[in-house]
């Protein structure tokens, strides 16, 4: 399911406090597990998760949504919130992420150079959402790779048929086989399944996406939120994140 409730074991104790967490949708699976872990150790706390694209979450917070903690997939949206005084203190780094190319197993893409073959159907995320921005950066970097065709970047972009506002939709379309290949987060590999092959991007051309976390100014439970923030940065949570393909936060 999408956001499983705290397990049956903890439900005897009526949770008295609720934390609302707004999180970028790429964190979905990992965060659901982290939530269970936290609730296990804090039986009186219930975490309510709200996943969406980072810009949407920011917009909702700006328009008055009540959130205790905000997990952003990039820096710019977080700093916008900080600038408008909605985020408390300096945002902390949560995890890092990288990009990977995924390709439909039934499709013709087996390696990076295949991306430039004419007639392919590729998907990118919108340049305005973090992953879309990162994808274009990585693509531009790959264009410098001498082992690839000289106009690699142009030819790949010519194969793009859709710019998705959400990275999860990109994954879905590749899974369905209607899109041959796409740039997604490394952490998304956890949600791909067997129909999809992963093609790694050499580290020198890859990007490092940094996820930030901050307690919100209007938090109802600021103290608890700070506790959760600490928990997120702790070993237990970080190991869960790593299992889902995220990099450790550089402490």
């Amino acid at each position, binding site marked *: 399911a*999408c956001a499983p409730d705290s397990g049956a074991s903890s439900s005897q104790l009526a949770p008295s406090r609720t934390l609302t967490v707004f999180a970028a949708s790429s964190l*979905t*699976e990992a965060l659901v597990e982290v939530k269970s872990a936290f609730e296990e150790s804090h039986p009186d706390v219930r975490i309510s998760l*709200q*996943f969406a694209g980072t810009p949407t979450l920011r917009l909702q917070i700006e328009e008055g949504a009540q959130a205790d903690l905000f997990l952003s997939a990039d820096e710019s949206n977080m700093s916008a919130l900080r600038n408008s005084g909605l985020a408390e203190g300096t945002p902390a780094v949560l995890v890092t992420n990288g990009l990977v190319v995924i390709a439909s197993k039934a499709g013709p893409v087996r390696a990076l150079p295949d991306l430039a073959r004419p007639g392919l159907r590729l998907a990118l995320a919108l340049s305005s959402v973090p992953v879309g921005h990162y994808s274009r950066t990585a693509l531009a970097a790959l264009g410098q790779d001498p082992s690839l065709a000289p106009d690699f970047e142009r030819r790949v972009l010519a194969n793009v048929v859709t710019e998705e506002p959400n990275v999860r939709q990109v994954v879905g379309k590749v899974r369905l086989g209607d899109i041959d290949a796409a740039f997604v987060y490394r952490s998304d590999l956890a949600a791909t399944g067997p129909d999809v092959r992963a093609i790694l991007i050499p580290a020198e051309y890859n990007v490092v996406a940094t996820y930030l976390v901050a307690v919100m100014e209007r938090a109802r439970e600021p103290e608890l939120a700070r506790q959760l923030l600490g928990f997120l940065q702790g070993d237990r949570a970080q190991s869960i994140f790593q299992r889902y393909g995220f990099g450790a936060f550089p402490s």
Partner: protein
Amino acid sequence: MKPLPLTPWSLLGNAPAILYLLFIGIPFVALFLRAIALGGLGESLSDPLVLRSLLLSLVTSLISMGIVVIGGTPLAYALARSRFLGHRLVDALVELPLVLPPVVAGLAMLMAFGRQSPLGRAMEEVGIVLPFTTAAVVFSQIFVSAPFYIRAARLGFQAVDATYEDLSRTLGRSPWDTFRRISLPLALPSLLGGLALAWARALSEFGATLMFAGNFPGVTQTMPLAILSALESDLSNALALAVILTIVSVALLGAIAFLSARRERIGL
């Protein structure tokens, strides 16, 4: 009386009917086949979260439809019959919500009733907070679905011959009696038709809801939002939920269709 066998029309009517059937039937068949192939239907059905979403969808859409019918029916009747001040204006405004992509509609509601707006702040001061509550789900559903009901009801009332209403009045019945016993039953097929459209729309609503009410399980996560969430992680679960929603909605619409068919049989 035995109706004329409209043979040429039945045939001509059949061609688009078959095409349309295929066009909408195939995706549904694909959806169902894939959902079955991927499995997970039984699992989803026993998931308490799914049941909560389903319940939330049913309850909120029921409330929305109640409000739409109670508020929309007199409005539609007024639009059909009387020429009150601003009649033209309201008539044009009724359909306005349809032209906004639901996400933008949700955004507009957020900007109207959210904390950033004077209205939202005033409401907050008296303790009313709309955004990200179950009430916001209802608001979103009403916003996007009411026009369907009101428009259909208005056309239905307009098609009722005013002679019947006149005659009811000469028989000593008040305008209210006349409305209830003449106009309403005569327009009922249109009202039910509009209600079916509006209900279907409300049940499938997610854009405005996501923006204005958010996506919190048990509070604002309706079935469409649950499907959307599942879609981002677990296709088989998403498809299972979509199948469940379809079946439940079809049952509801079937009930409405049954009601209007019964009315037709007794001679409407």
